[in-house]
């Protein structure tokens, strides 16, 4: 139930709905909980609802952290 991977917002549809791409599989989900998400953004979707938008800058910082190239985040 929690095993959701980040998916890309392909197109915003009517109301809160959006078409997303999950590794080639397209599906309609709701962005009601993440209204700020735009086309091209990656979001985490649970049971048909996006619950978080992924921050690309923070993702890069975390990848640098793995390699030991940055300070610990807070």
């Amino acid at each position, binding site marked *: *139930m929690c*095993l*959701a991977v*980040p998916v890309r917002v392909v197109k915003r549809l009517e109301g809160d709905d959006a078409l997303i791409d999950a590794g080639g599989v397209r599906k309609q989900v709701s962005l009601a909980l993440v209204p700020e998400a735009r086309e091209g953004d990656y979001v985490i979707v649970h*049971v*048909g*609802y996006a619950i978080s938008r992924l921050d690309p800058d923070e*993702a890069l910082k*975390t990848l640098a952290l793995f390699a030991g190239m940055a300070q*610990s985040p807070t």
Partner: protein
Amino acid sequence: MKYVDEFRDGELARVLAERIARAVQPGRSYRFMEFCGGHTHAISRYGVTDLLPATIEMVHGPGCPVCVLPIGRIDNAIALALEHGAILCTYADTMRVPASGRSSLMRAKAEGADIRMVYSAADALRIARENSAREVVFFAIGFETTTPPTAIAILEAERAGLANFSVFCNHVLTPAAIANILESPQVRDIGTVPLDGFVGPAHVSCVIGSQPYEYFAEEYAKPVVIAGFEPLDVMQAVLMLVEQVNDGRHEVENEFTRAVTREGNTKAKVLVAEVFELRRSFEWRGLGEVPYSALRIKGRYGRFDAERRFGIVYRSVADNKACECGAILRGAKRPKDCKVFGTVCTPENPLGSCMVSSEGACAAYYTYGRFRDRRAA
């Protein structure tokens, strides 16, 4: 950036493994609980334990929504369909969870109960619209990730005046379960489950934020590192936990900053607060009755509450005696300590709930062959 492959990179995993190996102090052992079944799954699937020094042990927690649902609640759901004639809409995960008398939602469906698997609460609403002459009940389960969509469904049902829709609410709360584990005699007094820190939930924290864990870090002097569900996330969190233990710190750190903030998802939290309130107590499989650990529908939305509408009475039912799910969910035992693991109890024919869901510790061990542990006794 696709947020997947980058966080599964084998080269980086080796770099992290070396850094963890350098960080552990000789003569010291480390026991960390990953609360979430999502982490348990990642650890098993990617063989994270094989990359960790032998002095680090990962203890699996109760964060698997299907696993912690007690038998009595499944019995209630079956009764809604069989005795009250409702269309019961459920997430697929619950279909094979064992109920009383060797039943399950799957078997009840075979016996003629109208039970339908749905992907989302919105699908249950659609079924209610299409079957206005029937009662339609959504079997709502899960932690803080699945609760906001249930709140949206109830608000939408009210807006649309859907008189035949209700929700059988079984939503549970992560912080209450962590507190219960930390308060348990096994952790506090006897020391049979000594824990040095927690890998904090990934997606639950997207909703509730990192703030709720600050209390545990402070009150119980245990470090918490919130981590994403990819293998490198887990390894980085382990490194951060080792460093906290070495330094004598107990803070909340956030490894999953790409998705989790301190406040979480405010919009989701407001919706949940509008529709739900705390239950005084709720039974968890493995943990027993846990005070203020679950939600129920507020009186204002009472007509959408299946428990009120159908007068549901909860009866506690003991687990199968041979099944060790309870102890496994508390972190007191591991799947291979269970006599029926992989023999009588398999994912195809589960005896206990931990073998049902892909997030369950037993299913994760079985699926990825972790029961053939190199450290197996």
